[in-house]
């Protein structure tokens, strides 16, 4: 599958050994971004900053310094990460021209190990969507079929990895935004346990479920990137303790108890996805996994819970866009209240406004108990069911999404239909457990299908190990 880049670990060791130059790798990445610009995966490059950093890294190595575990490795960040060298827009008009005053912790940690951010990837504006069609700028094309969406919201990141514009990309996952585009475009998408990676310097969407994670070509690459980013950060008080090493993943599937979530395989699942998932389950069985069926009875409630909690938190997080401190300001306002109304009304796109309105509704006095509190309570039920299922098995599996990548424009007139794309991914965001999408095979027409594997909260290392063994079983 991979034809341009070596495994990340090998790139870094060759750069450190002087066999590859960071400067050449950055140029190679920038050239590919230019050549494949028709896919519209990229919002902007950070080329000046990237070239400067590459030069520093090459000079440091020439002096005999250790340039780090990701020495000279180019990467692409979703445009909701604060990064120096280009605007941070979250693909929204309201943040156009916003220049990061500081960088995200995740970016700083990657840079400290020698990685180089070369570009910012497209997304649904503020990460609200499942196709990149909600980007205020343009829609990214699926790298396998230009008439289809790449998935979303991290669609630009997924397309970048599949097009090999850089060895890896960063995404964010609030309801499936790393895993679903990984499934639609055909790469690895890793959503860590809630709190494992600092969110300082990332544009907030729904704070009780937002996580940061890598999109990459292999599980090993994703694990190495996670290993560099993971762990407590004083700038994000929700960060949790990490496990010792996410890169030592030697494990076989033999005797691993894996439960297929039966509700994910039933009504609503397209036949072509079902066939690929069933055949991938057979391969896991052949590799020695003990497969059984498990149930999460409230699965069909998960999306309703999500589409109350998410807009509620979105409406709160987007309240900071008041036109006074940063972002778009309406010029013609006569007083402060009008300045709020016009700056927000003119600045936000349609989906952001839709979510703010829903969030405002479910949080308003008189409706709070019926919607928000009820959703939080059903969230508890989902967590309990998830934990009960994991008493009998070590891992849970199922599809990532009910369909393969859909045609551009197919769902734009029906926001509710668009929301249904998240139906199999939101539960892990509600529970806070780690979850990965790995390429499981192709449906008719060559469109990729991802298999979702989930583990209990804070068992990221165990999940990555079983994902790597599964990747080998599918090879």
């Amino acid at each position, binding site marked *: 599958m991979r034809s341009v880049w070596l495994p990340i670990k090998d790139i870094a060791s060759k750069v450190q050994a002087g066999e590859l130059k960071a400067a050449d790798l950055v140029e190679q990445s920038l050239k590919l971004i230019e050549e494949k610009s028709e896919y519209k995966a990229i919002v902007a490059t950070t080329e000046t900053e990237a070239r400067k950093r590459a030069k520093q890294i090459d000079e440091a190595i020439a002096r005999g310094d250790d340039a780090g575990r990701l020495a000279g490795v180019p990467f692409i960040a979703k445009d909701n990460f604060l990064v120096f060298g280009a605007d941070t827009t979250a693909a929204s008009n309201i943040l156009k021209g916003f*220049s990061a*005053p*500081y960088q995200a912790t995740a970016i700083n940690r990657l840079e400290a190990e020698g990685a180089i951010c070369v570009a910012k990837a497209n997304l649904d504006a503020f990460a609200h969507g499942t196709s990149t069609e909600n980007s205020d700028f343009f829609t990214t094309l699926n790298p396998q079929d230009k008439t289809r969406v790449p998935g979303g919201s991290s669609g630009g990141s997924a397309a970048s990895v599949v097009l090999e514009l850089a060895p890896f990309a960063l995404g964010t996952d609030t309801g499936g935004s790393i895993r679903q585009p990984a499934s639609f475009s055909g790469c690895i998408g890793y959503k860590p346990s*809630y*709190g494992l990676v600092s969110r300082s310097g990332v544009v907030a969407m729904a704070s*009780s479920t937002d996580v940061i994670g890598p999109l990459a070509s292999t599980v090993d690459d994703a694990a190495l990137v996670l290993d560099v980013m993971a762990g407590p950060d004083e700038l994000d*008080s*929700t960060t*949790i303790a990490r496990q010792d090493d996410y890169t030592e993943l030697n494990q076989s599937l033999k005797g691993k108890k894996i439960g297929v979530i039966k509700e994910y395989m039933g009504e609503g699942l397209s036949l072509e996805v079902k066939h690929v998932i069933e055949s991938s389950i057979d391969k896991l069985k052949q590799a020695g996994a003990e497969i059984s069926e498990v149930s999460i009875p409230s699965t*069909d*409630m998960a999306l*309703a*819970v999500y*589409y*109350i909690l998410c807009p509620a938190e979105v409406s709160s997080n987007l309240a900071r866009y008041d*036109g*006074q*401190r*940063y972002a778009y*300001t309406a010029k013609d*306002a006569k*007083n*402060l*209240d009008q*300045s*709020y*109304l016009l700056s*927000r*009304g003119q600045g936000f796109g*349609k989906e952001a*406004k*839709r979510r*703010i*309105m*829903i969030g*405002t*509704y479910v949080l*308003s006095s*008189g*409706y709070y108990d*019926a*919607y928000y*509190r*009820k*959703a*939080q*309570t*059903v*969230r*508890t*039920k989902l*967590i*309990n069911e998830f934990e009960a299922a994991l008493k009998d098995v070590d891992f849970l599996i199922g599809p990532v999404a009910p369909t393969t990548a859909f045609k551009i424009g197919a769902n734009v007139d029906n*926001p*509710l239909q668009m*929301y249904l794309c998240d139906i199999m991914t939101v539960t892990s965001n*509600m*529970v*806070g457990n780690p979850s990965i999408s790995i390429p499981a095979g192709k449906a008719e027409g060559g469109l990729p299908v991802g298999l979702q594997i989930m583990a209990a*909260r804070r068992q990221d290392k165990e999940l990555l190990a079983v994902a790597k063994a599964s990747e080998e079983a599918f090879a």
Partner: protein
Amino acid sequence: MKRSLLQLVLTMANLTRDDVLKLAQLARLDLSDAEIEEYIKELSDILHYVEKLDQMDVTGLKPTNQVSDLTNVTRFDEVKSYGYEPLDLLKNVPEVEDNQIKVKRMIG
């Protein structure tokens, strides 16, 4: 049969034009007429969908606010320098005067 309070509230989810205008005012969003018309239908559809939670029996369960398992994360209340100048941090502000953010008059 007596209907629960929850059901009574939820049947109000067919939003009217006035409801949408009220929400837009609460959320400080100036909307066009076309947007208002669109949102009346779309928001009602979404609210109808999430009403399915009404069927769930959650007796004895507590709401989940967050899933980090952390409680009371504290730090020392001290000023730390991260190496940024005030003007670096104010560079995106529309109007600055004496290192302060200038806004429109609030009172009177």
